[in-house]
């Protein structure tokens, strides 16, 4: 329960920052002003400015948008593609399931970063390319989880009961399997969200993700690299933001698991 609350608060903070940034930011996050370079925290610039004189708070707020956008699309792609694939691999004909599994292994064996670089080369480096690459790389983890849990559900007596009541394949997958694995899939979404945020930061750091001038936490890190020794603040601010996002989504996932895992359901009702 505590995990859920802390996670929700941290995630809520990021969502709030992103939403407010549409209406208001202290300064224009892309406005360059040589006179304001590398200023420390002050009344006007709460977290100071970077080496181009841009306001850090404003960049952080608009960067939160990018972070959420990336997470939603990447996790959305992974869940929407991976979950049905996994259920199908479990419930469908055995040979087709095998093919899905082998294809899954191939994608899984492929380094996600390499995939993103290939995507970037093929479609041009952008936030969207990064998101889709991260999403595709995350599909196997959803497919695996969905298959493993679907197999568990398919071997239960209530699925046998549903079959003995005349239900057939697809209906059983939709009515009985999906609702019973949904909890774990949601948990996986939340955890993957954290991983996607981190991956986007890494890709942007390498210049393969979000392109200037759109603010992104990963790029803020990259730009501060050379000033690490003189201005550690520039590194700490986006670093902390990324850590908070990952921690928030992971805690949220943990808390959700406690609430959504059907295997814990009975215990909670009794306790």
């Amino acid at each position, binding site marked *: 329960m505590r995990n859920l609350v802390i996670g929700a608060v941290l995630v809520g903070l990021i969502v709030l920052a992103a939403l407010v940034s549409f209406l208001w930011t202290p300064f224009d996050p892309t406005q360059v002003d040589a006179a304001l370079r590398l200023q420390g925290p002050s009344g006007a610039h709460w977290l100071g400015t970077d080496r181009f004189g841009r306001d850090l708070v404003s960049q952080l707020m608009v960067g939160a948008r990018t972070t959420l956008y990336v997470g939603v699309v990447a996790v959305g792609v992974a869940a929407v593609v991976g979950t049905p694939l996994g259920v199908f691999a479990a419930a469908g004909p055995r040979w087709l399931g095998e093919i899905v599994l082998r294809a899954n292994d191939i994608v899984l064996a492929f380094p996600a970063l390499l995939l993103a670089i290939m995507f970037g080369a093929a479609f041009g480096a952008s936030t969207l390319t990064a998101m889709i690459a991260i999403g595709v790389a995350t599909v196997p983890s959803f497919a695996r989880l969905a298959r493993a849990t679907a197999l568990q559900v398919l071997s239960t007596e209530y699925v046998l009961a549903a079959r003995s*009541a*005349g239900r057939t394949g697809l209906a059983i997958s939709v009515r009985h399997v999906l609702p019973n694995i949904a909890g774990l899939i949601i948990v996986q979404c939340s955890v993957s969200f954290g991983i996607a945020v981190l991956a986007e930061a890494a890709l942007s750091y390498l210049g393969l993700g979000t392109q200037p001038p759109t603010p992104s936490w990963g790029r803020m890190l990259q730009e501060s690299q050379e000033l690490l020794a003189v201005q550690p603040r520039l590194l700490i601010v986006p670093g902390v933001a990324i850590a908070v996002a990952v921690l928030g989504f992971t805690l949220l996932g943990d808390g959700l698991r406690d609430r959504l895992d059907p295997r814990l359901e009975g215990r909670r009702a009794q306790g």
Partner: protein
Amino acid sequence: MLKVDGLRVAAGELPLVSDVSFTVGGGERVGLIGESGSGKSLTASAVFGLLPDDVTAAGSVRLDGVREDLVGAPESVLSRLRGSRLAMVFQEPMTALNPSMRVIDQVAEARLVHRAAADRAAARRDALGLLEQVRLRDVAELGKAYPHQLSGGQRQRVLLAIALANDPDVLICDEPTTALDVTVQAQLLDLIVNGVKERDAALLFITHDLAVVATVCERVLVMYGGRIVESGPVDEVLDAPKHRYTKGLLDASDLEAVDERGRLHAIPGAVPAAGQFPSGCVFRARCPRADDQCGEQPPWFGEPAHGHACWHPVGGEE
């Protein structure tokens, strides 16, 4: 109504059920008894065409009014019959209901699957009626509950309501009361018998509890080692068993009788694993009366519906 003829079930080369034949008429209540591992549940699964992937059935299972043989019938034919003309109540009420679905929806679904109800609202109304039929109280409230909020007895009633939802012609109950308290058992047995009587359905009641067979059934089949070893009217089989195995089973369930050392009667040895049964009479390895003749498979003595497969029946020449 249901006619099983020469049913064989095997896992690859390993025979699990051999040459099982019986019929259950409309309105007839037949018990299928035997120890764990005797092939009772497999027989039921074979009738439903719900055997595990690597287990195959041969022989014939016919249902009145269906042209195809149910053994080897395509899934499309079987799934139309399951839940409408054939229904099953499972042993474990804890696991036979979907934990993430409201009770009422699970009962309503039984009506919807076979299009017995016009729409979801009508199916829900039917479901409430069915839950009342199995004498559950406050069905409107109870229907909104999830399975984990119900007691074992309530869940088993819900399962019975689902099984009876489409007025099946054949109801198979696979040890439905084994997981329940004794007090709840009697009520559920009553409901099963009434439900079957009202519909003039055939009942195949699988159990290892002889007392339950005596209350519920009119006829009984005794299974051991994947074969039917004795059959007949309940009174006669339970009062005067012919097959040595039936005799052993009855002696073992008599908690008053003890041997000279004051111990309860038991059948010596244990049920062998599948494939480990002796050739000839399947019971001969544990039978006190076995001799050389038992090395040969005993034929069926008597009528198909009342007879036994034993070379040395109880009450015969000693």
